[in-house]
């Protein structure tokens, strides 16, 4: 078969391209929602953990956060996904996309938490002291002085975490969800041709990651303007 024929056979015949489109849509949707869950939850954990590190507050909360981080970071994302799907929601009729968002959001939160915490801890103690000496309370100092600087410092690491998350969602096929990877794989199973569908999937991932890196890069440069 020529290149054009192969392309037609794999993607156009029986509208097989729709598997890729459906998969891409699911992958993007899950990424977006999981990032939101991950950032919100991760941020809260980071604030609890760094407040504890700095002032010894939130002893009990910090303890639970540490357990959470240990468990999430100590087990594979795929096992977590399977547990969320087959154990936690085994008796509940719940959309697979929601299951994936919860699993990947909870997973990402652990990594985001430690990234943000490292950002908070990287800001010189003098910044906190300056804020407090002016009469700002702890949360005002955090919000106005520490977090904006911390965020700027961890932006590259956060961008990296989002890239990892986007690609990690490729394991969603294991709960029968058609994500981008599974979409390509379905085509492969129908046509018995691996090259085209899988290369197409890989190329789409590559483009997504490049766009994401470019966006993070731009944001980073914009925030750096204030430095010099």
């Amino acid at each position, binding site marked *: 078969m020529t290149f054009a024929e192969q392309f037609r056979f794999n993607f156009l015949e029986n509208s097989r391209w729709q598997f890729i489109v459906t998969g891409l849509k699911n992958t993007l949707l899950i990424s977006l929602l999981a990032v939101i869950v991950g950032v919100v939850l991760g941020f809260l954990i980071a604030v609890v953990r760094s407040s504890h590190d700095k002032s010894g507050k939130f002893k009990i909360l910090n303890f639970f956060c540490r357990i959470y981080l240990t468990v999430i970071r100590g087990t594979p994302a795929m096992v977590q996904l399977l547990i969320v799907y087959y154990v936690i929601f085994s008796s509940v009729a719940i959309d697979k996309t929601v299951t994936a968002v919860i699993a990947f959001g909870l997973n990402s939160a652990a990594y985001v938490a430690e990234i943000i915490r490292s950002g908070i801890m990287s800001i010189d103690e*003098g910044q906190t002291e*300056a804020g407090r*000496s*002016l009469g*700002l309370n702890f949360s005002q100092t955090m919000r106005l002085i520490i977090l904006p600087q911390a965020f700027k410092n961890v932006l590259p690491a956060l961008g990296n975490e989002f890239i990892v998350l986007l690609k990690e969602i490729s394991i969603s096929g294991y709960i029968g969800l058609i994500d981008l990877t599974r979409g390509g794989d379905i085509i492969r199973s129908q046509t018995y041709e691996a090259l085209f569908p899988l290369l197409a999937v890989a190329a789409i991932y590559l483009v997504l990651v490049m766009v994401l890196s470019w966006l993070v890069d731009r944001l980073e440069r914009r925030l750096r303007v204030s430095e010099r």
Partner: protein
Amino acid sequence: MSVDKSKVLIEVQGLEKSFKDNHVLRGITTNIYQGEVVVIIGPSGSGKSTFLRSLNLLEVPTGGRILFEGTDITDKKVDINRHRQKIGMVFQQFNLFPHKTVKENIMLAPVHLKLMTKEQAGARAEELLKRIGLPDKADSYPGQLSGGQKQRVAIARALAMNPDVMLFDEPTSALDPEMVGEVLEIMRELAMTGMTMVVVTHEMGFAREVGTRVLFIDDGVIQEENEPKEFFSNPQNPRLKDFLSKVL
């Protein structure tokens, strides 16, 4: 303006501070009166910075009391943030907010604590920048300033809160020698306006000329205190004599 001995601003009673086994402050008692410029000197590790930082509770004392304008601020029930608004502080390392412009640095606290509107705070910032000789730096970022300029902005930032007392923690120790003068000059002008100041420094010239009282702290206690002329010309404590012979 002169010292008003009838008005005690800060009353320090038996102040103690220890870090684990390290007894840094071992009972300091003194009054700071309205209009005083109290200069604190002492060898490194003597506890002088810890003492200064205790006055606005950046270091929480492990014993004794501090009364600021009559209120015991070491009492856990007291809202320390409200009192800190009246106690300005200038740090050795400036601690300007690098992500904010000079003007935003000065405006931040008054605006967010709702003491001034944005317009009022902006006008106040410009007035202060003129006073410290940097009216053209309003929109610069701290990273674009020299050390001396940074410290002057830090002083302006503290003054924007209209504090009743200003604490200076070795304000010139991190500066290149040629920039020390400009910062001391601002502090001297501030003292002339009658501002109550507590200054930890190694600048003996400043202590002698601007100070109204000099404290010598060593081993966590005030070893000697006196008005500057007597203090430097006629020291009594052998440790102070030894210290002065090294630094003068």
